[in-house]
């Protein structure tokens, strides 16, 4: 395909708009597509309108878009992830509806294929990763007693490119079509010959840019954990969450490059007629599969490790006990991180390689069950002889423990090449990975959301509704995905938009009902959020420690001030804040107040978000002049920003003193509540120690 045969708008034309199809040949299929496209446009207009109406542009720009504060960047990551999640969730629902309605379904094969491709891509790259990165950004520097992450501006840039790639995916709903090759985008199907449209190009650029963002994030977090810990915070005094963050960051650094290489090579094949993965002239698509899973497998542990970390915090806090087997857990985490680089072949056991290779990788895969098992047992031992409170995060954690084990079990079964020859690419596999992703990653995210929310916003979320939502999640999840195990064993392939064999029908119907329950869970979450905002005056926790927390993030007021700690705490113990409370070292007046330097606001992130978004769009549509201009703009923006001289501002000691005295006065005035009153208005974030 020659790149020059298009006009100045590249491949873009009126027909590229999703609505044009609907106008020309109305059908349910097109209606669904147009509705999705309209939703994107309407939502964007609504948001822009609201911002203008309430004159929020100024504050938005000053307090958020240009902020380099790790807590705000974290929150922006999470907001972005939630927006993407709504789309991913709806796509999941539509797919379940289609398969339940099949053989008479309402979607075209092509549309269904776009759904699973975007759903997978979005859920992994634009929901799970950014959500976790957001939580990490928020909590990790607080936990290690640091002022910020190591490179605040870099942090902003990572967010910028992640968001712009997400926006690109949203744009693909309105202009043109997304790839139909699944989230793994195997060539030659996604190559120029077989997918001549722009779909795979959307996928490629979204992956390359968000991948770059994730790599930079990994570098940032690694350095932060490794080099920016507060005084006395030895590695082995870090909360377990920080360990999992360190390991996950290492995975980001070393696992993203193969993906970027794979995607870029696919791009070279498509744009410049290279022959990496083509059928002819010596191309070899097996190289792609190999590269993709070199990334893909570490990726899934990258997702689940921070979730393990969150659960570790949750189990310990809500059992009012120190974490059992801390060292074991650390070692297990590291084992998982390293082993995860040695198992990638289990995603293509059926490629045709010799049994020796399958055996080696099969055994390596199963080995991961050992450290994971240790973790599970350690969490159980953490609850053992504790005083367990069934709060929302804890309910998620317990659900995780039971359900994740089932997903892990099906993973171990898949690790047997003998069995994998039978269930590879079937719904059994789909059930496996949702069974680890939802109870593992998603429940972790939701637990973390409920756990840290008061820290970020200063008031608690409604616990009753939170628990209700959790139970709905369990039920919905089980109903949706357990039937898929059976359907898979009975031989139903994944990615089928329909089936002729009616054996599958009942399973699909149950799964659809499950998906409706999941939808109810999501709605409950929204209701919980709204109700909590309504009730916020009764649930304020300004003192900052609503759950009798054990680690340093609970030692500061809620919401946390920009500088995190007036004086970086000197750590002497693993459960530092618990110890401090026990020995009366908590809530103490700093010896003296000193000015704090913090990085200034920086518009670079925002500029890069816009320019990289335009660059990607131009590349997708072959608009070369625009691509050139935006690439130059990126270069100039980056270079120009290095010429900035004043990059810090100072918070004067007087300001610190004022803030702190007010907070300490509040502590003085408040009553320390016991755990029984945790969910009552009397809990202002001042906890009585459980003894």
């Amino acid at each position, binding site marked *: 395909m020659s790149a020059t045969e298009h006009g100045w708008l590249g491949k873009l034309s009126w027909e590229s708009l999703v609505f044009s199809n609907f106008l020309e040949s109305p059908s349910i299929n097109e209606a669904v597509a147009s509705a999705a496209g309209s939703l994107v446009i309407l939502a964007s207009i609504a948001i822009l309108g609201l911002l203008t109406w309430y004159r929020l542009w100024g504050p938005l720009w000053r307090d958020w878009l240009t902020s380099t504060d790790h807590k705000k960047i974290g929150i922006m990551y999470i907001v972005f992830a939630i927006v993407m999640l709504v789309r991913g969730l709806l796509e999941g629902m539509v797919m379940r509806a289609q398969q339940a309605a099949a053989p008479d379904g309402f979607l075209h094969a092509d549309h269904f294929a776009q759904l699973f491709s975007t759903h997978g891509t979005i859920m992994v790259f634009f929901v799970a990763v950014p959500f976790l990165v957001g939580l990490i950004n928020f909590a990790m520097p607080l936990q290690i007693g*640091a*002022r*910020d*992450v*190591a*490179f*605040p501006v870099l942090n902003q840039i990572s967010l910028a490119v992640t968001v712009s790639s997400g926006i690109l995916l949203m744009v693909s709903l309105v202009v043109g079509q997304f790839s139909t090759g699944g989230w793994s985008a195997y060539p030659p199907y996604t190559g120029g010959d077989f997918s001549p449209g722009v779909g795979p190009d959307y996928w490629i650029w979204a992956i390359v840019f968000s991948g770059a963002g994730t*790599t930079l994030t*990994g*570098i*940032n977090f*690694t*350095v932060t954990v*490794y*080099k*920016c*810990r*507060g*005084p006395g915070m030895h590695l082995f005094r870090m909360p377990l969450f920080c360990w999992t963050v360190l390991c996950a960051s290492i995975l980001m*650094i*070393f696992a*993203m*490059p*193969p993906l*970027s*290489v794979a995607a870029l*090579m696919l791009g*070279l*094949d498509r744009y*410049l*007629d*290279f*022959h*990496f993965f*083509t059928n*002819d*002239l*010596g*191309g*070899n698509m097996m*190289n792609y599969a190999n*590269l993709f899973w*070199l990334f893909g497998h570490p990726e899934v542990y990258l997702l689940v490790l921070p979730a393990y970390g969150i659960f570790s915090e949750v189990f310990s806090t809500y059992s009012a006990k120190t974490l059992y087997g801390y060292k074991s857990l650390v070692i297990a985490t590291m084992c998982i991180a390293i082993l995860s680089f040695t198992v990638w072949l289990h995603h293509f056991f059926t490629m045709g390689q010799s049994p020796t290779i399958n055996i080696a990788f099969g055994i390596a895969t199963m080995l991961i069950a050992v450290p994971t098992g240790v973790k599970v047992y350690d969490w159980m031992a953490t609850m053992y002889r504790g005083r367990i409170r069934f709060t929302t995060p804890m309910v998620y954690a317990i659900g995780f423990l039971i359900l994740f084990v089932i997903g892990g079990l099906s993973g171990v079964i898949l690790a047997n090449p003998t069995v994998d020859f039978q269930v590879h690419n079937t719904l059994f596999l789909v059930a496996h990975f949702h069974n680890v992703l939802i109870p593992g990653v998603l429940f972790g995210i939701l637990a973390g959301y409920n756990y840290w929310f008061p820290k970020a916003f200063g008031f608690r979320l409604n616990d009753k509704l939170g628990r209700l939502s959790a139970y709905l999640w369990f039920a919905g999840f089980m109903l949706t995905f357990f039937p898929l195990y059976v359907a898979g064993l009975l031989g139903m392939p994944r990615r089928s938009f329909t089936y002729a064999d009616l054996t599958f029908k009942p399973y699909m119907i149950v799964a659809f009902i499950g998906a409706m329950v999941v939808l109810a869970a999501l709605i409950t979450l929204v209701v919980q959020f709204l109700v909590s905002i309504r009730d916020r005056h009764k649930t304020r926790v300004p003192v900052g420690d609503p759950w009798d927390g054990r680690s340093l993030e609970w030692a500061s007021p809620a919401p946390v001030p920009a500088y995190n700690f007036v004086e970086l705490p000197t750590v002497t113990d693993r459960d530092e804040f618990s110890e401090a409370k026990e020995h009366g070292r908590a809530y103490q007046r700093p010896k003296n107040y000193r000015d704090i*330097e*913090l*990085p200034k606001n920086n518009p670079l992130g925002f500029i890069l978000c816009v320019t990289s978004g335009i660059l990607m769009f131009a590349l997708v549509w072959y608009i070369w002049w625009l691509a050139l201009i935006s690439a130059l703009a990126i270069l100039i923006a980056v*270079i120009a920003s*290095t*010429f900035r*001289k004043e990059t*810090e501002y100072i918070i004067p000691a007087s300001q610190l003193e004022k803030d702190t005295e007010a907070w300490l006065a509040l502590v003085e005035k408040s009553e320390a509540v016991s755990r029984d009153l945790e969910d009552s208005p009397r809990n202002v974030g001042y906890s009585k120690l459980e003894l």
Partner: protein
Amino acid sequence: MNLSSSSKSPGSIGNAHEAAHRDPAVVIFGFWVFMMSDLIFFGVVFAIYITMVGATAGGPGPKELFDFGSLFAQTMLLLTSSLTVGIATVTMRHERSRASFLFWVVITLLLGIGFLTLELYDFSEMASKGGVPSRSGYLSAFFGLVPLHGLHVTFGCLWMLVLIAQVFTMGMGQVVKLRFLRLALFWHFLDLIWIGIFSIVYFGGWVYG
């Protein structure tokens, strides 16, 4: 914050009491981590190259396309530039004159540009013999790898230009010094990659291609 280690680390350039994120040890370590990620990036492309050595699909292969003399010249240019960037580092760390520092940076830049010129010439020679990436999987792999290194060198040259400008506009302060230290690391790193390229891509190509 590892304040204790900062005075001895490779990033040491005087005692600076700045905020945590500006601690030289942190900045330099961060750059090391980035380079290791880049190393994996290169490693993966190397692996692809190795698997595609035989995939010439009847087109020209290494034996027809590579030029021994030019390869040797490129290697020496890059290696020497690694020395000159090192000398620049030393003059900077020992606070010698700004002129001598700039002299060595400019020499490095020129060597880098010389390297790139030769490399581009090589590519055009290859193209004239039918060695273009669209010809075969093998050539795709070659042009995915060697120009990737060249792109890094180009980026390094650009970085040097910006840095020279910053020496004049911002002075040789801590910020600029730290940036130069990272640039020097980057430049040495590219020389390491080049060892892999001449050993595996060129020599390996000759032997197995």
